[in-house]
């Protein structure tokens, strides 16, 4: 298969951070993810694209075991993080989620102050020894979330009082505050205006220095702009995975081509 060749070609440039083998997800009888194999690299932005309902979010949520919270969801296959199977019975999903952070499609700040929103993760993971350190983490995270300047004067105002775009950046700042190794972002920009989108994309590019970022997006342009690798999902299958440039200029699967040229989706 062509896509396998592409995977082989691109691996080796960076270490593999997350690796999935024969992943199946069932929601009751609904087979939502079929036989997905993928290697996600460290210090790389990987974009998941595909038509609505094809299973992008579902697969993303497998990587930090968020699907565990859905009673009907059943996962088969193997996903490893740094060569450790995250579905091993010995793995505590709580510990995993401290390493694999997530930003959700809809901004979901806690109904607490901006400061507490950011400080919550570091607090429960004991990342700060004292108040000064915590203050520092909060400031650093808000700066990385490209929202510091807007909120520095009202850190104790409610986080839910921000605009939708500000809330989303707050959520991104919250996710990076716990220093995850992998950051999963499910359509993080769908509620943002072009300016905020540009800021978030800039941020994603920065995060790439330290993290492996996986982003689900419906915007081809966004995928092309921010990602190095792109995976195209269709009806629960991973159809094609490879270098972003290659997927967008020279897709090997006809389905990928029709999707990016706007014929399906």
């Amino acid at each position, binding site marked *: 298969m062509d896509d396998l060749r592409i995977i082989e070609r691109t691996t080796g440039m960076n270490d593999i951070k997350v690796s999935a083998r024969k992943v199946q997800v069932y929601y009751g009888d609904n087979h939502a993810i079929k036989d997905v194999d993928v290697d996600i690299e460290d210090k790389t932005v990987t974009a998941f694209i595909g038509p609505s309902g094809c299973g992008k979010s579902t697969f993303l949520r497998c990587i*930090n075991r968020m699907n565990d919270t859905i*009673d009907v969801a059943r996962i088969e296959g193997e996903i490893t993080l740094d060569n450790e199977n995250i579905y091993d019975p010995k793995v505590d999903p709580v510990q995993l989620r*401290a390493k694999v952070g997530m930003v959700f499609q809809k901004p979901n700040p*806690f109904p607490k102050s901006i400061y507490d929103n950011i400080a919550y*993760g570091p607090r429960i993971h004991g990342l700060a020894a004292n108040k000064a350190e915590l203050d520092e983490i909060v400031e650093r995270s808000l700066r990385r979330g490209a929202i510091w300047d807007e909120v520095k004067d009202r850190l104790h105002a409610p986080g839910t*009082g921000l605009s939708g775009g500000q809330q989303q950046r707050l959520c991104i700042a919250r996710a990076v*505050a716990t220093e995850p190794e992998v950051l999963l972002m499910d359509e993080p920009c769908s509620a943002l205006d072009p300016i905020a989108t540009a800021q978030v994309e800039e941020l994603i590019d920065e995060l790439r220095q330290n993290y492996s970022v996986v982003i689900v997006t419906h915007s081809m342009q966004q995928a092309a702009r921010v990602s190095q690798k792109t995976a195209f999902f269709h009806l629960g299958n991973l159809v094609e995975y490879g270098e972003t440039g290659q997927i967008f200029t020279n897709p090997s699967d006809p389905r990928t081509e029709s999707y990016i040229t706007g014929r399906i989706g």
Partner: protein
Amino acid sequence: MTDATSPTPSASVPKKKGSLLVADERTKKRNTAEKRFQAYGIIAIGIGLLFLIVLLGSIIRNGIPAFTQAYITVPIELVEEKLDPNGNRDPADLRKVSTFGYAPLIQEGVLRAVQDAGIETELSSPGDMKALYSASAPAIVRSMVLDNPELIGTTIEVRLLGASRVDGYLKGRVTRESIARDKKIDAAHLDIVDQMVELGMAKRVFNWAFITGADASESRPEQAGIGVAMVGSFFMMLVVLALALPIGVAASIYLEEFAPQNWLTDLIEVNISNLAAVPSIVFGILGLAVFIQFAGLPQSAPLVGGLVLTLMTLPTVIISTRASLKAVPPSIREAALGVGASKMQTVFHHVLPLAAPGILTGTIIGLAQALGETAPLLLIGMVGFIATNYPDGIAAGFLSPNSAMPAQIYEWSKRADPAYYERAWGGIIVLLLFLMTMNIIAIILRRRFERRW
């Protein structure tokens, strides 16, 4: 643009709609339907309000008289030879004189007061005066004397509780026609009362004793109060609060947040809903069988009443707690889990604070229900028990026999004397004030916790 000028007139071109200034048939129909529905709603609210006004009006009209009470103030000579023949004020000796020793003194005192005041009456024997004041008078005077033996030999002004007929006469409940066949009082007595009122000897004053006092026997409604039953209700509510809130909240959190979805939890869920619909008297029988007959807890005790009411309240607390947990948006849970919080941290740091107002409201509504519940108390013997004293101490408050406000009201409403009927209504006012206070607390707590950002 009209169809005529349209370059390609075809069947799919929509017909031109009429003027916006004239409502079309469909719009008119919809508008009248809406108006009709609003009218139904207003009528429904009107009927509800009417019932409420009638209900509250009759409660207040019937119950307010219970809050005043007729008193007769007369000088009573505490004759030393009768009360302390030895003259040494020895408490043991003083105690030997029973209320029968005091009764004649009071009768004579009242008769003398009537004569001294120049009240015209054909009644001349001291025994005739008994109809004017409460049968509790000798006991009250006796305890005054035992408390303060110095009074013996002096003449003191005593405020005697008016007899229930006299009380009723001052309130208009008893009339000269209604006593025609009453053996307890004659028109002659009422003549005395009329003149006493003129002279200021008989007065209707606010009846604190009704709010603070204990129940009295059938024949002395003027002495009966709801205070001790209130204490009984209070201790029961403590038990209910201390048990139903933690058990209910813990059970709901477990069921809602932790329990796997399977047939067992479904079964539990269905049964909790069913329990909420079980008639309260069934809980009473259960309490009788389990707490009193099997566990051997004392009868008529607020502890048992509280346990029974806890059983009854639990489903309400669980259902409302689960509803308020469910109402917390799942995105908050995802957010917390997403930053690596454990399930328990998620629940206690984020979900519970958001659900707190709902939980508190549900609990207070459950408590209010329990406060007004009578039927289960019938079965565990908290009705009909005449508690003449306040419980001494906290333990006795839980364990010694008592009644509860609604049970007391029920008990009074069964008694023959119309004076008790009046007290039953008065008791309802007190109970309603309690319920209203609880509901106001619920609203305040809700407002306070509802800082939903």
